[in-house]
């Protein structure tokens, strides 16, 4: 392997930058004064209504549940109606709260629980990771929790540490996200403030805004390229 003299290149690049910046910019347009919005966006309707409208506009399904049982009933019904047998649940508080795991057992579906905690050693962990990953690639529906929902854009924010939503929201054919209405935030600036704790952010955060899509052939919108072909959202308004 060749030795990469990265340190040297870094020094060279920084020296070049410093030298380049000795000449002040020649600004063609000085620009004009501008306002920075100081408050979150205001909507005519409440957060839940806006969120549901936006999610629906994106071509995703959205169900508002008034109780855990109602949420559970809706999900089980959807799974039964579609004839789905391969189901994955991420080990996320809001998913557990609905009691979906046992409800699925009652219709003889043993869901794959996506959870990497509690392995005895590295070996066991890597085996479990490989197995879960292989299973998720074959899974029809992945059910996850979220960190936030963003009303302005109908966006789901995934990225809580140790909730294991990352692959379960990506690999299955359908992604079903469950969130509580108190997880709704008005807009992206508010969500970013919440995700940034004094300069520390979680390792992997994803904003999901609608199902996977492409327009790469003749600019024709096509749903479901590499990510989920279908997005379903259950909003718990308790």
């Amino acid at each position: 392997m060749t030795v990469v003299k990265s340190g040297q290149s870094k020094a060279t690049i920084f020296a070049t930058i410093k030298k380049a910046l000795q000449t002040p910019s020649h600004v063609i347009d000085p620009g004009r004064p501008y306002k920075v919005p100081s408050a979150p966006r205001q909507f005519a309707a409440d957060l839940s209504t806006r969120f549901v409208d936006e999610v629906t506009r994106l071509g995703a399904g959205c169900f508002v549940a008034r109780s855990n049982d109602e949420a559970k009933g809706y999900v089980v019904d959807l799974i039964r109606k579609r004839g789905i047998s391969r189901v994955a649940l991420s080990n996320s508080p809001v998913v557990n709260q609905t009691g979906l795991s046992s409800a699925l057992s009652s219709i003889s579906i043993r869901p794959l629980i996506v959870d990497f905690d509690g392995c005895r050693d590295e070996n066991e962990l890597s085996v479990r990771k490989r197995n879960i990953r292989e299973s998720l690639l074959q899974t029809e529906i992945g059910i996850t929790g979220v960190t936030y929902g963003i009303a302005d854009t109908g966006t789901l924010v995934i990225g809580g540490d140790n909730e294991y939503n990352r692959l379960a929201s990506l690999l299955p054919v359908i992604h079903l996200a469950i969130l509580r209405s108190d997880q709704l935030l008005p807009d992206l600036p508010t969500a970013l403030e919440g995700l940034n704790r004094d300069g520390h952010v979680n390792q992997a955060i994803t904003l999901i805004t609608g199902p996977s899509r492409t327009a790469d052939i003749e600019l024709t919108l096509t749903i479901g390229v590499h990510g989920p072909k279908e997005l379903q959202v259950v909003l718990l308004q308790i």
Partner: protein
Amino acid sequence: MRITTETFDENARGALLNRPLQAALRHATHKFVDNRRYAITELDDWEDRRQRSNAIKRETIEHLDRYLEEFTTNVEKAGGVVHWAIDSAEACRIVVDLIQSKGEKLVVKSKSMATEEINLNHALEAAGITPVETDLGEWIIQLAHETPSHIIAPAIHKSRADVARLFTDVLGIEYTDDIPKLTAVARERLRERFATAGVGVSGVNFGVAETGTICIVENEGNARMSTSLPRIHIAVMGIEKVIPKFTDLALFLSLLPRSATGQKLSSYTSFLTGTKRTAEAEGPDEYHLVMLDNGRTKILADPIQRSSLFCIRCGACLNACPVYQRVGGHAYGWVYSGPIGALLTPQFIGMDRGKQLPYASSLCGACKDVCPVKINIPELLLDLRSKIGGESGSLNGKRPRLAEQLSKKAFAFIMARPGAYNLAAKLGRILQLTIAKNGKIADVPIAPLSNWTKNRDFPTLAPQSFRERWKREQENSGKE
């Protein structure tokens, strides 16, 4: 990749005569323009946002060393390994060495202009490593051994029938031009690759100095796959892509998708910060970030052209440009096309090789009006033209001929004197009788004017000047 910037004129002529390409370009650019126009109406402070983003970019670029130091220190603190590459050769060597040292052979790639710029796929293949493009458009052009013709939609120049034939020939599938079916083929074939690749290579849309976060914007999910499934993630990022604060992402993410595809947000926006914090966490074990100069510091050294580094690669200026709308991306001869390509290409690959590009503009200013970071592209193009021409002001760098000097002097003389102007117009009306056909002048037989009419028609002078007509109308109305 083969650089064909020097033959822009011929490339453009070829594109203009290519009817299917003309139809594809018209359809795509107009659709992009409409989508953007609709999307920005949803924000009542669009102009303020452009002004803000311009101010943030200026602040960052004018203190680039400070923000780069902060950014890369935070990447390292979070467990990422940072590499620095002065040019494309060094960047490719870093990536190839990394992959070889880990004993990996298969790479899944998500769309990245930076890796197009350094021609990474070529370097990987030369080292016996298989790169697989996973963005549908990029995959199509990789299968066709072509280059992207648009920043956002790389295969914009191909019709569904082209893609159908390509898939039949290369992948051996039964012919279908049904777009959802073609897309399903990509999903199925590339899933196998995602599942087995040891390395994922991605680009970066924004790097946040405050947190060491990289932001990747996409619609298909292939970037999430490439950065989640393989055990090693390598990101390649131009050094100009840094922004100061995590909350600045909100501003830039309100501008980029709206300008690019007309979406409020793209389907997937990922924020990745270093490596995983616990063994249990999902995602790659290793994360490397290659910081790419490759000519950017040279642009930085130019106090005027510096602002071209503000570009966030949304592609809006391509769609809005009357030249791009007609000639498409390939005519520009390198990875960056359209107005921003006309600015960046000569500076990246050398003025002598890219000198035709700054002239591929009517200076109409549509690019400037749509640019979400308010780069004054027409002014920068004019500045580049003056640099290319040098003191002589001529395109080929030679001293201008006497005839050219005299004609410019004569033009200045005539334009400054109404009497001379009227006389010249009368003379022109008589002279044009010899060359005008059907109300236009398609070919002036005298150089250098013949160069101009080689690719365009010139409208004939009206039989009457406006002043003459005005005078007559006034006289007539006076009689009544």
